């Protein structure tokens, strides 16, 4: 049996959650003071995901950098791979919100897209 300790982020209370697991199966969630804690814990131990945000360099734009994000959540374990996929990436201005910067980042099937408009100089 595996014990996972989490802090609930559903509200400022920040309940310390304890999840008992047997393989992939959740045996119990304790420590939560409301139902939201239970929901959060179950998602976080089985399928934790995050949006990754970063920047890449822009060539010939009004700004030197453009901010980017994974269009959707990616598995938590793939976060650093997504960041690494951006290393050395340079993009020519103009860039617009939603433009694909790196397709299918780190094999997640999720594109990394621009989150800012950078016009040409």
């Amino acid at each position, binding site marked *: 049996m595996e014990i996972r300790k989490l802090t609930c982020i559903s509200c400022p209370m920040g309940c310390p959650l304890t999840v008992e697991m047997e393989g992939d199966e959740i045996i119990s969630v304790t420590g939560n003071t409301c139902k939201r804690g239970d929901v959060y814990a179950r998602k976080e131990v089985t399928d934790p995901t995050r949006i990754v945000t*970063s*920047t890449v360099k822009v060539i010939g734009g009004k700004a030197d950098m453009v901010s980017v994000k994974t269009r959707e959540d990616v598995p938590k374990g793939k976060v650093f791979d997504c*960041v*690494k996929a*951006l*290393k*050395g990436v340079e993009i020519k201005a103009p860039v617009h919100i939603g433009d694909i910067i790196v397709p299918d980042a780190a094999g997640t099937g999720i594109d990394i897209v621009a989150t800012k408009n950078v016009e040409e100089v």
Partner: protein
Amino acid sequence: MYDVIIVGGGVSGAASARELSRYKVSVCVLEKEEDVCCGTSKANSAIVHAGYDAATGSLMAKLNVRGNAMMEQLSRDLDFPFKRIGSLVVCLSEEDMPGLQALYDRGVANGVKDLQILNREEVLAMEPNIVDNVYAALYAPTAGIVCPFNLNIALAENACENGVDFKFDTEVQNIRKTDSGWALDTNQGTYETKYVVNAAGVYSDKLHNMVSEKKIHITPRRGDYCLLDKNAGNHVSKTIFALPTKYGKGVLVSPTIHGNLLIGPTAIDIEDKEGTNTTREGLEQVIGKAGQNVKNLPMRQVITSFAGLRAHEGGHEFLIGELDDAEGFIDCAGIESPGLTSCPAIGEMVANILKEKMGLEEKDNFIATRKGVLDPDTLSREEREELIRKEPAYGNIICRCEMITEGEIIDAIRRPLGARSLDGVKRRTRAGMGRCQSGFCSPRTMEILAREWGVSMSDITKAGGDSKLVVGTNKDTI
């Protein structure tokens, strides 16, 4: 081969260089830091003392009073900010009156003009924020405040304009006697000269002791300060000193020339000549003592704290003159307070010593004046608009706390001995010196520095040497 090498680009070295530049003589200043005004000269009370402190008959007393008298004309000639705001030495009890009277008598003996002892009512009428239990005060109307950075920089720039060489990042490691004078070994090679002026501040003992058997010891005496926001700048209108009593020495409270309020210093003897770190004990002392003479100090308005080192020599006297056992080596050592006040007179004295020894003749093309970085606030509205039309950079505010424009920063960089670092820009323009302490303007000032010097952002330093502000680019190590 130079005629004179001055070691140290603080106020003493710069004033000496500037005075020497009146004459037909080749002069070089060696400075271990990347800029002038990087040691004692940059971190002190910025006070132009009236001259009642030093022992009557001492060189300190003489140069203090002379320096004070020279400062006003010098500030006009070299365009640096100076104001004669006056000072008060606050006495809190009748039993301390003999001490106050002694200061008065000494001041009169030293030749300080217009001293007055004020009673409680007179003090409070003059300075309503003095503590209610004030008993009397010594009023010295000739005391003033100055911008120590711009005093130092102005002297150096003017010296430079008049032909003095300045070598930065050049640290003297050894001094050797040669047939024709002296050889100074530095981290940038050897410099030869006929005469040496030792204006090395807290390091002046090190240099002195390289050439003389009569050893001296300079103790770095640290002073911690707190600087308050301009909101608090008019809390007092004069420099408020504490009368030293059996309970010790207090701290001063003074407006600065740029309208902040300065409180300090401590006096903590240390051995580390680079020990410019504030300590918790030091800052607590400053905060603790601040209220002894001035009430309702808004200590929540502190925007920064810093520490400076005075070059304290055991005899508490300026050591200026050629060494008996090292001909051609002129000491300018032990320059602690009132060194800033005295610097015009120190420079004059050093130059006179060399003039006599070397039989120097005056140049006919000496440039006696210098214009500082143009402060658009001093212009009329029309002049300012005209300036922006000609130089749009003066319409672009970079430091929003002090309202410093890109034009001023460019001026600070492009002038003789121009700023190379963030602190260099700060000392010349005040950009970054305000309430946000450069949080907003530092990336913008870095960009201007990089552009003007034609280097990359990662070459820009805070204060030269290893003080790089950025270390690389995003993801360069992953």
